[in-house]
């Protein structure tokens, strides 16, 4: 079955090609089904390969397949090759699995969209790219996928491109990612010049011989790449804007798969990370701080997708915290569970939006559990999972990250504390979201004709996005929310994936229970890939930490209930303006880019047009002026000419005299 490895990415690619070459002749819903089938088939192949790997001994669970040489240039030899090992297959499994579910969901969600086919075409291309990223047996193929997912993300964010803000969001995502790509490329160069190969296997083999400084540099560079793709401080700003894309896109790309690729990359390079010294501290701290900051921002968001977006950023922070503390298994574990529950939450949110005439403002929601019970039920599962309530999957994975941080050498306790606080806040804002959406009054009933409340920072954006969705998704009522609007549950095509994901979100923790080695299946499975195993705190500490984590989650939920159900504390006191506006980070970026950055660019362009080109034209002008001046000597008067000749003669004879011998 290993020989079929290439089929995993090839199937989605085939789907993409069929849809492209058909030139739009394959329409709704066939295009959707085709795309879904391709991803589903890909999932099947993945499972087969997985089974094959499992059947092998632990040491033989690594397999490469090179299709052809891609960029052979002297000693730089890069094949178009795939690497199947426990790590990549794990990734593949949830990429194709969750991907297939989201495709399915999208058939329903995108119903009626004029660009239905194009949507699935992009989606298939995305899955292909993501699989290349995951399966590539060297950094360059990963980079191919890395850029591919970036481009697809760009297409899909800007999918409804007639609204310029969507287009801007797409461009922003791409450009921000490109900043990270700089790190990826330079990192790749450094790896090659250091180790002589960009193959992962060679890197693993050669990592121990890499000097600490070099390893640190490499890891920092790749971390730069990861901050771009995985939306960490300082490059996280694109992800919230990326919610402009259709909701399945948010679920697939901006929650479950693409954004985790930074983590995947670093885990891939874990042998180098081991050598990298303080780079790990950087990763851990950036992760922790991102987690906290994003969680705080999420508190004040009113757009249902924005909350989830910041939540994603925050959860990704957790992953980096885990990677930084060397807890790779936990990172992958949480990545998987997060994929389940975050995809679930996004799809749930999509279902809500779908049912609410594409209004994304949570302040217009309320009591929706009555209208869309399946969505509400599954969403609540997701909520519990992300909040870290046992036994839902999120609890196990998050707890493992926190516990893993506890013993970390550089400020492990503080990292743990930050993580814990984040967990509390996560529970809080997720509770807030659930309460605002599914419980309480039916707030759209009291909407005035004026439409949306512009207060509350990014809500403005959210509203615009909502408008955009409204305008360009003609499947539903075009009129927006009116007091007499009746929400409805989504079609089975959409709820089916919800249910499936909810199931996974509940039981996902099973793959790696911390009770004993036997239960730590994921840990065992990934062992061949992880060069240096992470030491977890001892048994009792682990239990205490777990209990504290549960308490924190419950505290967060409780607080939220106090604020939003009992309304003991005014929400305004908690939903700080600074949170709502994302600590002004994005704004200051924009201000910089629009201000000094723009001025710098303008200055360069001015310099080019006036100084450099001016100099060129200046040469011409000088010639003209010189000619005009010289021309005055040509007065037309013959005596003047004779004078010139006489002077010339004097000079020549003078020269002769100067040269003569005496």
């Amino acid at each position, binding site marked *: 079955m290993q020989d079929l490895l290439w089929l995993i990415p090839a199937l989605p690619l085939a789907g993409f090609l069929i849809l492209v070459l058909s030139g739009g002749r394959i329409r709704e819903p066939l295009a959707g089904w085709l795309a879904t089938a391709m991803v589903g088939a890909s999932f099947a192949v993945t499972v087969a390969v997985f089974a094959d790997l499992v059947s092998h001994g632990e040491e033989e669970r690594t397999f490469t397949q090179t299709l052809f040489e891609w960029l052979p240039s002297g000693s730089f030899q890069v094949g178009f090759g795939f690497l199947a090992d426990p790590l990549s297959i794990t990734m593949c499994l949830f990429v194709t699995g969750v991907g297939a579910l989201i495709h399915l969901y999208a058939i329903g969600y995108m119903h009626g969209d004029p660009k239905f086919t194009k949507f699935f075409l992009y989606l298939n291309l995305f899955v292909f790219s993501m699989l290349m990223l995951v399966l590539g047996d060297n950094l360059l193929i990963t980079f191919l996928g890395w850029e591919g997912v970036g481009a697809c993300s760009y297409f899909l964010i800007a999918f409804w491109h007639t609204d310029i803000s969507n287009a801007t969001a797409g461009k922003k995502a791409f450009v921000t990612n490109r900043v990270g790509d700089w790190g990826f490329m330079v990192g790749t160069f450094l790896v090659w010049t250091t180790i002589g190969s960009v193959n992962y296997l060679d890197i693993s083999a050669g990592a121990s011989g890499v000097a600490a400084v070099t390893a640190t540099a490499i890891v920092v560079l790749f971390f730069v790449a990861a901050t771009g793709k995985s939306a960490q401080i300082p490059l996280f700003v694109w992800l919230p804007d990326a919610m402009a894309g259709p909701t399945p896109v948010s679920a697939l790309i901006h929650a479950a798969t693409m954004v985790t690729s930074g983590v995947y990359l670093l885990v891939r390079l874990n042998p180098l990370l081991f050598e990298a010294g303080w780079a790990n501290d950087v990763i851990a701290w950036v992760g922790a701080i991102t987690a906290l900051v994003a969680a705080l921002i999420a508190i004040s968001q009113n757009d249902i997708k924005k909350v989830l977006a910041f939540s994603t950023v925050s959860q990704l922070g957790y992953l980096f915290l885990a990677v930084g503390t060397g807890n790779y298994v936990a990172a992958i574990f949480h990545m998987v569970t997060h994929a389940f529950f975050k995809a679930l939450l996004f799809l749930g949110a999509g279902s809500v939006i779908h049912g609410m005439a594409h209004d994304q403002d949570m302040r217009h929601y309320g009591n929706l559990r009555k209208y869309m019970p399946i969505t509400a039920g599954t969403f609540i599962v997701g909520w519990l999972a992300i909040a870290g309530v046992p036994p839902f999957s999120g609890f196990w994975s998050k707890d493992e990250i926190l516990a893993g941080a506890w013993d970390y050498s550089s400020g492990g306790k503080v990292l743990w504390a930050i993580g814990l606080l984040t967990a509390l806040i996560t529970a809080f804002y997720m509770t807030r979201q659930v309460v605002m959406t599914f419980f309480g009054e039916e707030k759209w009933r009291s909407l005035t004709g004026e439409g949306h409340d512009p207060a509350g920072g990014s809500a403005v954006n959210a509203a615009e996005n909502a408008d955009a969705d409204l305008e360009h998704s003609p499947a539903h009522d075009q009129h927006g929310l009116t007091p007499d609007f009746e929400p409805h549950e989504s079609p089975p095509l959409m709820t089916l994936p919800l249910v499936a994901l909810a199931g996974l979100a509940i039981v996902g923790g099973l793959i790696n229970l911390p009770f004993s080695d036997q239960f730590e299946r994921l840990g065992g499975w990934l062992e061949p890939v992880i060069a240096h195993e992470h030491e977890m705190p001892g048994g009792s500490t682990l239990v205490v930490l777990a209990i504290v984590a549960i308490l924190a989650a419950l505290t967060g939920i409780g607080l939220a209930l106090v604020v939003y159900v009992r309304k003991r504390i005014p929400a305004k006191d908690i939903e700080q303006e600074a949170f709502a506006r994302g600590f002004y980070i994005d704004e200051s970026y924009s201000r910089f880019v629009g201000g000094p950055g723009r001025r710098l660019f303008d200055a360069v362009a001015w310099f080019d047009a006036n100084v450099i080109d001016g100099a060129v034209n200046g040469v011409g002008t000088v010639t003209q002026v010189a000619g*005009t001046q010289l*021309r*005055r000597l040509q007065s037309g008067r013959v*005596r003047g000419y004779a*004078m010139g000749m*006489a002077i010339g003669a*004097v000079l020549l*004879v*003078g020269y002769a005299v100067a040269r003569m011998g*005496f």
Partner: protein
Amino acid sequence: MLATTFVEYAVWAVAAAICLLGALGVVLFRNPVHNALSLVATLFGVAVLFVAQEAYFLAAIQVIVYAGAIVVLFLFVIMLLGVDAIESLGIERHVWRRPVAIVAGAGLVALVLVAVLVGTAEVTGQPSSTGSLGGEYNDIERIGRALFTDYVWAFEITAVLLTIAVVGAVVLSRKPTEAALDEAEFDRVVEESRLDEDVPEELDDDELDELEADDEAVGSEDLPTYVDEPGVTS
């Protein structure tokens, strides 16, 4: 010997004086007729000097051809054209012209003399082995022999030169049958030039330069594209 030398010096001095005065007369007299007559004086002086240097035949030719033919031709043309009008030597467009001209001329002479006279030898070339000025033949014979031996080709070519001169004179002196195409333009330019010359001598450099500059500014512009209005052109 002394006497000979003295006579030589005397002849040289007198002839040189005639030459130089005549030359100055050519340059300084305002009436062309006087200029021509001064030229005759110079030519005569030169002829004397030829004699002093044993070039008797050349001296004769000098008088016959130069004074007798060339200067007469000059006078003839002066009379023909009636250009014996007095040239106002007091006016010069550029005050600097004369000083510069004189400095250039003097510099040229000085430099040539430095180059020629430094050292003791009169000439650096070696005396002729074949065409000695002494010997069995007289002056005319010597020249005649040289003309038909060493210089025979030059002599032949001279014929071409003279033919050209004749043809040229015929071509140039044909009376034009109709008015020149650029008569108006010519009149305008001459008029303009005349106006320039009315500039009083007292004008200082700057003002003259300004005048000059204005003049050139007009001249340096591209010619206008219309054809039939020469009066308006620059």
